[in-house]
């Protein structure tokens, strides 16, 4: 029996760039025009085939851990791939990618940060060209500089490139997951059930 690989994927990016919409489009083939800040599920899962292998992608959506570094560690830890999303119509959201990437690397502290797989998505390409603030050339140049990161221009609304983008994410995540497994079967570390010696408050009298 072949064990289905479970791949943990974190989606990061400024508020309102369409992280949840992209996830929903990919997993549920649905899009809602009405913006709602993410509150719902902690993660969505989808079974996909990668090179004839069954894998389950687990897409993790943030719930405000960006502001709470210490609480975010558990959220980021053990990720197999990180998806950086920006809105092509917002220069600010593109400029923020750098700090999202740094934030992820600090928090997740992967074993090989130089080669950790990121996939960059420029979302909302369905919006009128006149409103576009980040050109494809500029976005690709940044991805090139950061170690040849795969770049996709997507629209969650029109379902443009979403399937392809996440397929690439699955491939990258699977590679990463296999690399990790070479070193450690359990990327989260073993649960230590031994009691630890702690300094009991008070004196022993």
């Amino acid at each position, binding site marked *: 029996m072949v064990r*289905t690989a*479970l791949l*943990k994927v974190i989606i990061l990016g400024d508020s309102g760039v369409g992280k949840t919409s992209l996830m929903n489009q990919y*997993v*549920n083939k649905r899009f809602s025009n009405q913006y*709602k*800040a*993410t*509150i719902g599920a*902690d*993660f*969505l*899962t*989808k*079974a996909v085939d990668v090179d004839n292998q069954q894998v*389950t992608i*687990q897409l993790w959506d943030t*719930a*405000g*851990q960006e502001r*709470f*570094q*210490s*609480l975010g560690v*558990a*959220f980021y*830890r*053990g990720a197999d791939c990180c998806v950086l999303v920006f809105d092509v119509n917002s220069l600010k959201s593109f400029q923020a990618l750098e700090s999202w990437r740094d934030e992820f690397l600090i928090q997740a502290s992967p074993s090989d940060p130089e080669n950790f797989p990121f996939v960059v998505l420029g979302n909302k390409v369905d919006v009128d060209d006149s409103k576009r603030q980040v050109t494809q050339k500029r976005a690709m140049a940044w991805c090139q500089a950061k170690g040849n990161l795969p770049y996709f221009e997507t629209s969650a609304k029109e379902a443009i490139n979403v399937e392809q983008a996440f397929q690439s994410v699955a491939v990258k995540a699977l590679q990463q997951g296999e690399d990790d497994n070479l070193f450690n079967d359990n990327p*989260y570390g073993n*649960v230590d059930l031994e009691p630890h010696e702690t*300094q009991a*408050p*008070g*004196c*022993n*009298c």
Partner: protein
Amino acid sequence: MSHAWDLASLLIKPVQRLLKYPLLLSAIIDETPDSHSDKENLRQARAMMEEVVRNVNEVRRRVEIIKDVLTSKKKPGTVAASVNLGKMKNLRISKTQPVDENSEAAQVERMSQELKRIEVFAQQFAKSMVDWASSMVKVVRALRTWSIGFGKVIVLSPEEGSEAFEAFVTVVDRQLMPLCGDLEALIFERLLKEIVHLLKTMNQPYKLLASMTEKEPLHYRLFNMNVSAKNRPSQTLFAASTTYLALRAQLAAELPPYLTLLRRGFSISVRRLAYIQTLFWKDVKDRWGELWEMLRVDGEPNAGHGETVAVWQSRWMDVDDVLASLNINQRRKIYQEPGPTRSSGTSVHPNLAKMEYTIRQTGRLQPPSNRTSNERMHGHVRAGKGESAGRVEDRD
């Protein structure tokens, strides 16, 4: 759509839930009309939930920083060395500026000094305690040496022993020696170990305080820095300042209960020593009391050391004279009874003064009294309680 659950996914749930309360409350607030009476309550609830999340985050962060400091093998000074410390000294808040007595920094500083005072006290206390126990052993050994010497002086032999003398030596050998042994064991095996254990608990607070002190100038440097686009503080400076604030906050929160426990711990040690001392002295008193009871002459009260000293003086006064006349020991009195009522006892015995005069005059030894030494010796044995004083041989 499949549902894949693994341990990490489940464990993150409560963390995520906590973070979601403010978001969920925000969503409810958005849906609640302004006119609704719950609107304000909801806002308060959200503010409080955000505060809860901030606190959890802050505590978690501090725990991580403290764990880092406590587990790092790094010697202090490494961070400071990596940042130019050149101009840092004068960037600290100067002493002339009014310092808020109730500020967190001042509180931690006071508690740090209190910790040092407690440590000094504990060290001294432990030393005095050990010295005291050792001196008790020394005293009893000296008493034993003296009593054996005394036995030789009064020429006791197996044939002509003294029941009283043997009883005395037995008290010293069989009663007081083991008592002192037990006392030493109790102090070394128990009290001292407890104090050492308490002192060891200071290591972690000291390590945190040292790390805090090391980062303090870096924090004040950042604090007083003119930050501009060109003059951005370095990442190291930020990290040091954050660590400083976290350590200070944690120390301010944890030192008060720790100091309370520490003081309680040491006061228990002090009380325990007092208790051990009380028991010890009571045991010593009982042992001597038993001996005294055994040797007591009918009608004589057992009124403590004053009585003993008086009896011994009346008994042995004459021996002082004889010893002095032998000119083999110093005239200096080893023991002087304090207090003005006994002042006459501290003055030179009239006979001794007289004898000294005689020696000066004649250049040779003259018995100062009109009685012969022979008479006095015998007189002494008769006058004293023969049982307790043992026998003095006639040397004539």
